[in-house]
């Protein structure tokens, strides 16, 4: 357990694959833990936040989601420092345990109905721990793999680590779908949503077992043996101008744009399809699963390609494509699920009203309108109104639920459009671990690369669905109650645009072959 490896030992293909597997499995599980929360934001909002206003509840959940992102840079500082002082291996073992423990605990917290305000407070606290742990994990895993990788192939080997974030998201969607199918929609919304959180404890146990068997990074072992380990990585990383300027360069000329492209492609796309287009829950998750599965191999393709033509060309290429095509992509997605542009089939459409009287004398009127279209898609609107027996009391606001079932061709077209967006993600994200590792020296690498990564990816990227959704809600006025569905895209486009220009001017395209310095 305390064995250390020499670079020569780990350079064998078998040794390298072991390193990649041990790092990737743990990181994948950490991303899984982190994303199941976001993937169930709507259900969690109902369970843990007051439900008087559904938008407030949703935003509150997203804020908690954002809280998970905002604390990531602090995790990067705490665990980055540890990783540069005591080593990569034990630091990312610790982050794994923290992540697993907090995820498991989220699955056990009683809802708002049982313990009141302590429910959201507990969730917020656990979400903070998740964010801290993730802040420490990625830098460790990327550094660990990069420090084992042979010269000229660092982009390819670190790209395995880059697949884990997307695969972790895929795994979270898969586990959620399977649990929902097995338990049924009602049981899943009531208590079954806890299962994906609780399952995490088994995944973490496997990953800890694998990681415990791994050796320390050869480059870190070497500097430790030579007594060159940094005594104060935070000071060396951020108080010395020569390194601080590289941290700023990494953040503003690369990671900031990567973060928004990443979170637009996977998360804002999901929010847009589910909330703005009202596409049915399972259809959204299936199309995301297909798109992710098809796009994931391209992380390796672009990682390997970046070894040949340079990291900058590929990352900036991805940003430019995203900036120029987001509007047409989102407009195309909108038109596919827009009932106003479709021809209705009268004999398969209709309205049904059901009235129920409760024991207290209140009347619930549920009006269900179903509209079927010639292309095979269906749109259902359910309006629930409560008429109180005591007419002196104000009637509660009517609840309206919209659900759109895509036609087969609509499903595959939207899947393809999401796939394109995730392809951009693979371009900007595939080479970035190698790029960051090459920018900083071994003795402060963990700290220096973790902070810009988590500010760019966590804050700029992680807040994308939050900011874009808010821009959309703010665009709804009395004159235009539907709002501007595309206004949220301005946020990622502007951030990626600035990053693209900065990258074009300031980033070198030549890869640094020697990271042992």
């Amino acid at each position, binding site marked *: 357990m305390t064995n250390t490896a020499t670079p020569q030992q780990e350079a064998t293909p078998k040794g390298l694959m072991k390193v990649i597997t041990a790092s990737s499995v743990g990181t994948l599980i950490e991303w899984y833990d982190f994303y199941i929360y976001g993937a169930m934001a709507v259900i969690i909002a109902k369970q843990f936040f007051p439900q008087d*206003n559904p*938008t*407030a509840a949703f*935003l*509150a959940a997203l*804020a908690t989601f*954002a809280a998970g992102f*905002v604390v990531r840079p602090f995790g990067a500082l705490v665990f980055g420092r540890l990783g540069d002082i005591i080593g990569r291996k034990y630091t990312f073992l610790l982050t794994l345990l923290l992540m697993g423990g907090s995820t498991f605990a989220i699955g056990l917290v009683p809802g708002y109905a049982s313990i009141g305000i302590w429910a959201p407070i507990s969730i917020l606290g656990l979400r903070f721990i998740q964010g801290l742990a993730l802040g420490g994990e990625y830098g460790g895993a990327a550094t660990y793999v990069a420090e084992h990788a042979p010269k000229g192939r660092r982009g390819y080997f670190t790209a395995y680590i880059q697949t884990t974030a997307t695969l972790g998201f895929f795994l979270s969607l898969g586990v959620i779908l399977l649990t929902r199918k097995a338990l049924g929609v009602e049981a899943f919304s009531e208590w079954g949503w806890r299962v994906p959180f609780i399952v995490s404890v088994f995944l973490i146990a496997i990953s800890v077992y694998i990681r415990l068997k791994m050796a320390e990074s050869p480059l870190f072992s070497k500097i430790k043996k030579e007594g060159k380990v940094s005594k104060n990585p935070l000071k*060396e990383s951020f108080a*010395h*101008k*020569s*390194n*601080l*300027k*590289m941290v*700023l*360069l990494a*953040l*503003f000329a690369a990671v900031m744009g990567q973060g928004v492209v990443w979170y637009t492609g996977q998360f804002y796309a999901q929010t847009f399809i589910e909330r703005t287009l009202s596409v049915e829950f399972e259809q959204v998750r299936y199309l995301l699963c297909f798109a992710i599965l098809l796009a994931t191999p391209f992380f390796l393709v672009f990682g390997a390609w970046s070894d040949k033509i340079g990291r900058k060309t590929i990352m900036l290429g991805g940003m430019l494509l995203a900036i120029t095509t987001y509007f047409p992509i989102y407009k195309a997605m909108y038109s596919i699920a827009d009932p106003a542009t479709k021809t209705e089939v009268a004999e398969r459409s209709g309205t049904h009203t059901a009235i129920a009287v409760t024991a207290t004398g209140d009347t619930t009127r549920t009006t269900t309108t179903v509209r079927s279209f010639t292309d095979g898609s269906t749109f259902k609107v359910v309006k629930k109104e409560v008429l109180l027996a005591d007419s002196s009391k104000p009637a509660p606001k009517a609840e309206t639920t919209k659900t759109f079932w895509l036609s087969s061709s609509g499903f595959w077209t939207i899947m393809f459009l999401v796939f394109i967006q995730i392809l951009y993600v693979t371009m900007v994200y595939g080479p970035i671990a190698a790029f960051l590792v090459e920018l*900083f*020296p*071994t*003795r*402060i690498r963990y700290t220096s690369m973790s902070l810009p990564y988590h*500010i760019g990816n966590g*804050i700029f990227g992680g*807040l994308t669905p939050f*900011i874009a959704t*808010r821009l959309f809600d703010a665009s709804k006025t009395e004159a235009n109650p539907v709002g501007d569905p595309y206004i949220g895209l301005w946020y990622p486009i502007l951030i990626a645009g*600035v990053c693209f220009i*900065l990258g074009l*001017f*300031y980033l*070198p395209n030549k890869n*640094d072959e*020697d990271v042992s*310095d």
Partner: protein
Amino acid sequence: MNALKRLSGFIWIILGLVAIYLMFKQAGAEIAEARAGIRPLLDTQMFWYVIIPIFTPIMLGLCLFGWFAWKGEYDVIARDSEHLT
């Protein structure tokens, strides 16, 4: 190219400062609207109380980046640790 890098440093300083100014201006306007009952108060406050403390230091970082660029710190990118720490 180095002259362009240096000159554009000034743009990044301005961009950072303008972003901070606009953020505070927008926050002030929206919170005032919320207090007047035009917007939901809790949502508006929560949004800006999250955004301002996070993005202000980051935008100051952009100003610092611009300053470094202006001073020619990015004319040559260091490739080894001797030049970094």
